[in-house]
């Protein structure tokens, strides 16, 4: 029963991890930009949820709409105004650029909100449900449900909409996409904005689970990294598989080695994978 409970916890964690990684993976896969800002975007989403709850009593699941929209706009402006100027440069260049932007944004948040951890306490927590001895923390279950919905939404968008097809087309062949009349710079901006939207939404959902502080951004970024390497780059199903794999691994890792080592374990796996299977578990570059 314990093992089953751990598996369940791992799956729940993994559903949230998938949401962390999916936007990061999209941006990396389509733009060839490793977005160091991603972790800070997530934290910003959490703060939006925190203040929306504190001042207006908006439930974090509802403020997903606010944090998603704000981050979408912020992401669009950053890509269209700044990153597009160097987007064709080698990946190290754009990595350095987003690293610099991350320093700015993260430090601005440190000044504005301090590094102190804040906790969003729900007044009407759903509590937990006992399912034949398995404990289901209902807030978390609902959060994972919402995360799955958002992830699925992105998946459908990429597959079934005009703009989604254009994003995939740009990922596969920029010049051919240009010949179809796709404005690549605009698609870059929309893609980056979608990545930021997913980060913001993840931040909102996370605000009911984790304490909020700008110093968490590195942790989130690290997880997104590991998940992309686990699941392969630039595909929604890849991010889901990678996310769930990491969630389960961390949960069992915490059981066997102690919770303080679960993050270390994740990075050990990352390094092992990079050495032995650099294309990810799926082994194929997906695209959706």
């Amino acid at each position, binding site marked *: 029963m314990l093992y089953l409970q751990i598996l369940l916890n791992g799956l729940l964690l993994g559903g949230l991890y998938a949401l962390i990684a999916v936007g990061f993976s999209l941006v990396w896969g389509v733009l060839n930009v490793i977005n160091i800002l991603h972790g800070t975007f997530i934290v910003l989403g959490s703060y939006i949820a925190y203040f929306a709850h504190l001042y207006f009593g908006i439930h974090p699941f509802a403020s997903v709409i606010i944090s998603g929209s704000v981050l979408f706009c912020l992401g669009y402006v950053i890509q269209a105004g700044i990153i597009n100027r160097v987007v064709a440069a080698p990946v190290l260049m754009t990595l350095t650029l987003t690293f610099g932007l991350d320093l700015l944004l993260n430090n601005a948040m440190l000044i504005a909100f301090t590094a102190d951890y804040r906790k969003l306490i729900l007044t009407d927590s759903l509590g937990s449900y006992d399912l034949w001895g398995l404990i289901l923390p209902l807030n978390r279950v609902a959060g994972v449900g919402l995360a799955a919905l958002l992830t699925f939404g992105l998946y459908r968008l990429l597959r079934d909409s*005009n703009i989604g*097809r*254009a994003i*995939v*087309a740009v990922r*596969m*062949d920029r*010049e*051919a*996409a*240009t*010949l*179809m*009349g*796709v*404005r690549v710079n605009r698609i870059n901006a929309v893609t980056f904005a979608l990545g930021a939207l997913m980060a913001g939404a993840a931040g909102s959902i996370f605000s009911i689970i984790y304490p909020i502080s700008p110093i968490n951004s590195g942790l989130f970024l690290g997880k997104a990294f590991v998940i992309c390497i686990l699941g392969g780059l630039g595909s929604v199903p890849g991010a889901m598989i990678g996310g769930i794999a990491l969630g389960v691994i961390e949960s069992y890792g915490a059981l066997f080695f102690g919770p303080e080592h679960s993050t270390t374990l994740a990075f050990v796996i990352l390094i092992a994978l990079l050495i032995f299977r650099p294309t990810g578990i799926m082994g194929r*570059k*997906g*695209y959706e």
Partner: protein
Amino acid sequence: MSENIAQLEIKALTSGYGEIQVLWGIDVGISAGETVCIIGSNGVGKSTLLRTISGIVKLTGGSITLDGVSLNNATPEDVLSAGIVHVPEGRRLFSAMSVRDNLLMGAYLRKDKSAIQDDLEYVYHMFPILAERRRQDAGTLSGGEQQMCAIGRGVMGRPRYLMIDELSLGLAPRAVDLLFEALHNINQSGVAILLVEQDVMNALEFADRAFVVDQGKIIVSGNADEVAANPLVQEAYMGVV
């Protein structure tokens, strides 16, 4: 050609890549509904010419006009909206996308949803094998089928001028026949065709007029049968001694 005939007119066109100049003054005109082929050895600038017309490569001199309207500073999007579609060398399909999605990408700028569906059916009718493979990734198609998909994708843009770079390269004769027949039908529906082709015999047989490019310039031009009879062309491109 008189001024009021609808046509794509290229005059004294120069272009290239940064420091490297490739085109040294090209003059080509194509009237609405016409078929024209461009032949020439490897590396003389045929693809560069098409890329300059479609706005991927910026011209450095001369002019491109469509029905008298300048396309000198047009973006690829503008060129496409004006009715000029470029099927690139090497087909350049979106390989991990389905055949159907590739075709739909050809209609990316169009908003007329029901007409897009009709055109999809038109392409499936033209190339029934694509209808069978519509859900399959384009990367899994054979070379000939990929070229059909590329041409179908071009047709989905509702061209008035369809430019095709290397129709037959690396394809089996049967597939080539099929593709030329399809091009003929597309042309019959009123679309002008500008074909860049290695297979000089087939190209000259297909086209009304022909241009021979060498070192970034047009060295021979005229009706296709005249060009075919030109001793220079026979010797250099048709293997006649």
